């Protein structure tokens, strides 16, 4: 695969992703454990924590999929196997949280 890239280039990409993943892991831990929002922010502080945690996770996941799993180099066709389940997952979550509210 990825015939247009030399082995060295791919290796460099791998190492970059690996370091990126490590850095993001450290960041997410710092954000969760070290970052305190003022009490007065109330629920917003809590929501920010959730958002930061998830955004970092999505970033990391994207790096894994894009480089390690070769989505970047491979047949673009393969992307549907990622998009469709993600879409269905969001339908489920949207229905049960936004529309469902507290009663489901």
């Amino acid at each position, binding site marked *: *695969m990825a015939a247009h890239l030399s*082995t060295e280039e*791919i*290796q460099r990409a*791998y*190492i970059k*992703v*690996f370091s990126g*993943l*490590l850095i993001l*892991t450290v960041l*997410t*831990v710092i*954000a*969760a*454990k070290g970052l305190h929002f003022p009490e007065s922010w109330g629920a917003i502080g809590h929501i920010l*924590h*959730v958002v930061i*945690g*998830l955004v*970092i*996770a999505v970033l*990391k*996941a994207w790096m*894994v*999929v894009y*480089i*390690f*799993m070769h989505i970047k180099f*491979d*047949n673009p*066709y*393969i992307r549907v*196997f*990622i998009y*469709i*389940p*993600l879409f*269905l*997952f969001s339908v*489920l*979550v949207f229905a*049960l*949280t936004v529309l469902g509210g*507290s009663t*489901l």
Partner: protein
Amino acid sequence: MSALTLTHEPVTGIRHGKLGMWIFLASEVMFFSGFFTAFIILRNSNLAAFAKGATELSWPLAALNTVVLIGSSLTMAMAILSLENGKKQRFQLFMFITFLCACTFLVVKYIEYTTKFHHGIYPSTSTFFAMYFIMTGFHGIHVLGGMIPIGWMLSRSFSKKGYTDYGRVEILGLYWHFVDLVWIFLFPVLYLIF
């Protein structure tokens, strides 16, 4: 009659096994989607219990495991690359590290679980722990499931014939990265966010 050409190149250009693995991974995403949905719903109705549960987990252990899995993903990717380039020893080395990482992950998981049990924490303790045990449990089963072919390929590569089936290793790699990916979400969701 001469040989038939019913078996030709895959129409999509993606080998059957690899295509199959991607379809399987789509299915796996839905499987974990079920758990994540349940997690979100239960969390929204029991914020307090979930916050309390998360503080009782050991995030340093989980962070360690995150690093271990990320590392194993790298070594797996490198192993595939090495095999593609015919570098047998590098392949063996990287596969071995991957295997080792998987073992480490499971040992850490084992320590985590047993400490929980010692503190009297079981799935019945709260919905948070129910979700914790089932999500990490299924993830652990996936790790274990991945170790079997990793170990098998590794041992085969030491045999006389060696192991050269690049295609299979690539498929295994996809699976392995997916296992890593699930953990990337489990880590913040279970241990960090509350």
